[in-house]
C-alpha cells in the first residue's frame, strides 16, 4: 500500500516537473536580458577582470562564491565531527 502510494506520488511529481521543463524558455534566452547585457558590457570596467566569468564569480556574485566555499567547509567539518575519535574523561580512546 505504502509503495503504491509513493509510486503514484512519484509519477505525478515526475509528470509535473517534466511538463514544467517542456514549458521552459530556450536555454540562455530569458525574457529579460538586461542583467546579461549589463555584465557583458560593464564587467571589465567594474571589476578590472578580462574574463566575464571571473567577474561574475568573484565580483558580482562574490558572496555566493564565499557561501559555496562555506558549504564545503561546513560539510567537511560535519564529516570530521561524525568520524572523530572520542576521548572520554579519564578513559582510554574508544573508536567512534
Amino acid at each position, binding site marked *: 500500500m505504502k509503495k503504491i502510494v509513493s509510486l503514484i506520488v512519484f509519477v505525478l511529481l515526475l509528470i*509535473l*516537473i517534466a*511538463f*514544467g521543463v517542456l*514549458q*521552459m*524558455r530556450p*536555454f540562455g534566452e*530569458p*525574457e*529579460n*536580458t*538586461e*542583467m*546579461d547585457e*549589463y*555584465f557583458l558590457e*560593464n564587467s571589465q570596467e567594474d571589476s578590472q577582470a578580462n574574463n566575464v566569468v571571473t567577474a561574475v564569480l568573484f*565580483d*558580482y*556574485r*562574490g*558572496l*555566493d562564491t564565499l*557561501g*559555496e566555499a*562555506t*558549504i564545503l*567547509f*561546513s*560539510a567537511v*567539518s*560535519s*564529516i*570530521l*565531527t*561524525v*568520524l*572523530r575519535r*572520542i*576521548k*572520554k*574523561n579519564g578513559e582510554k580512546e*574508544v573508536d*567512534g
Partner: protein
Amino acid sequence: MVWNTIVTASPALVLATPLLFAFLIGLIGNFLERTVEALFGCALIITSFFVGVIAFEVLTIGSWSYVFGAEQPSPKTMSSFFRVIFVADGYSVLATITIAIIALVVGIYSYGYMSEESNLDKYYLLFLLTWVGINGMVLTNDLFNLFVWFEVTTMASSGLVAFQNYRAKSIEASLKYLLLSVLGGLFFLFSIALLYGQYGVLNLQLLSAEITGSFNDRLAVGLITVVFAMKSSSVPFHLWTPDVHGQAPGPVSPFVAIMVMGYLLALFRILISVFVETISPFIIGLIVMVLGVLSMVIGVVMAFASDDIKLEVVYLSISQIGYIMLAVGVGVTTLTTPRYGDFGELAFAGGLFHIINDAIYKTLLFLSVITVGHIAGTRKIEELSGVFYKMPYTSVFFLIGALSLSGFPPFSGFYSKFLIYRATYSFHPILGLFTVLMTTLIFIVMARLFSSVFLGSRDESFKENVPTTMLVSMTILAAIVIVFSIIPHIVVSEVVVPAVKALAGVFSV
C-alpha cells in the same frame, strides 16, 4: 565616520563575524581548547552587538539595503540589483533579534551541558556556521543567495545533530535529516532555475515585477512552499522532527527549533514579496493556512500520545509552528483586498509576535526539560516524579514556559495568541473557536506533564547539581518572558508593527 560605515555594513557584519570566528576555531581548535571557549564567547557577544546595531538603527531611523561588492553600499542604479543585496528592515530586525537571543542563551547553556563531551571545538564551529546560515537566510534579498545559506544551515546543523557520534541513533537521525534536506535543497534549486531561466533576474523585487503567473511560476511556488514547509517541520512533512530532536544533544534541540523559525521567516518573505501579487493571494494564503491547521491538530494529538518529556515539547512546538502559519496564512488571504485593514494586519501582527514569543518560551521549555533529563538520566514520563523537590529553580522555569505556551492570561504567550484568536475569528468564527480549543488542549497536556513529572512523590534516585551556566541561561529567558508579559503593547508597537509594515505594508489599501 567609522561608526557610519559600521552601521551601514552591519547586515554584512552579522554574517561575517560568526563566519570569521568559525574559521578561526577551525584553524586553532585542535591545539588550544580553552581559547576556543573564549573565542566562541567573543563570537556570541560581537554578533549580538551587531544585531543590536541593526535593530537600533532600523527602529529609530529607518530601513536600508546593503549591496555587496559595489562602490557605494546603498543601491543607486538598476545595476546594484544585479549584485547580492541584504536588506535591514523591520522584518529582518525581528528575525535576527529572535535568533540572536536564542543563539546567545543556548551558547551559554552549552558551556555547562556539553562540558563532558570531547572535541568541543567542532561543536562551537558548527554552531557558529549554523548561525551564519540562518542569519543569511533571513537577511538576503536574492533567491540564489538564499539557496546558498539554506545549504550552509543544512550541512552545519546535520553535523550538530550527530555530535554525539558514539550513539548510533543520533547518526541515523542526522542522516535521515540530511537526505531529506538535500533533496529539498535540490527541489529549491530547480524552482530557482525555473524562475531564473524565464526572467533572467534573481533579486526578489525585480522578480516580483517580472513574474507573470505562468505554469512554471506556479510549479516554482508550489515546490518552494513544500520544501520550506518540510524544513520548518510543518505537518505532512514533519517526520524528521521527532527523530532529530529526540537524538540531538540537548542544547542543539532548541537551536534546531530556531533554525526551523528561520526557514519559516524566509518562506514568508519569498511568498509575500515575490508571488502573492501575481498568483492569487487567497490560494497561497489558504495553502499556508491548511498546513498550519494540520500542524496544530497533529502536534497536539501526538503530544498527548508521547511518553517522553522532550518529545512532548517537540510536538507542542510543531503545533506552535501551526499557529504561526495559520495566522500568517489568514493575513496573506486578505492582501490586496480591503479586508487587510479589517483584520489582515492584525493576523500578521499576531503571527509575527508569536514568532518572537514562541521562540523564547519554547527555548525555555526545551532547556528546562533537557536539564531534567540530563540530571535525572531519563526522559521517560513514568520514570520521573517529584522533580520539583529536587530541582525547584528548573521547575519554576518550566512552569513559566508551560503557562506561556498554553496561553495562560498574564503570560506573554496569551497576548500573541489573543491577536491570533481575533484575526482567525474575523476570518471565520469556526476557525477562531478551533484555535481556542487547541490552546485548551495544549493547557491540558502541560498540566498533565507538570503534575506527573514535577509534582508527585519525592524521588531519591538522583542528586541535584545543575551547573550555573545552565541556570543563568534559563534565568535570562524567564526574565524575557516576564518582561514581555508586562509590556506586550510596547513590543508590538516597537518591533512587531515595523516588521508587519516591512513584510506586507506595500499591499495596504
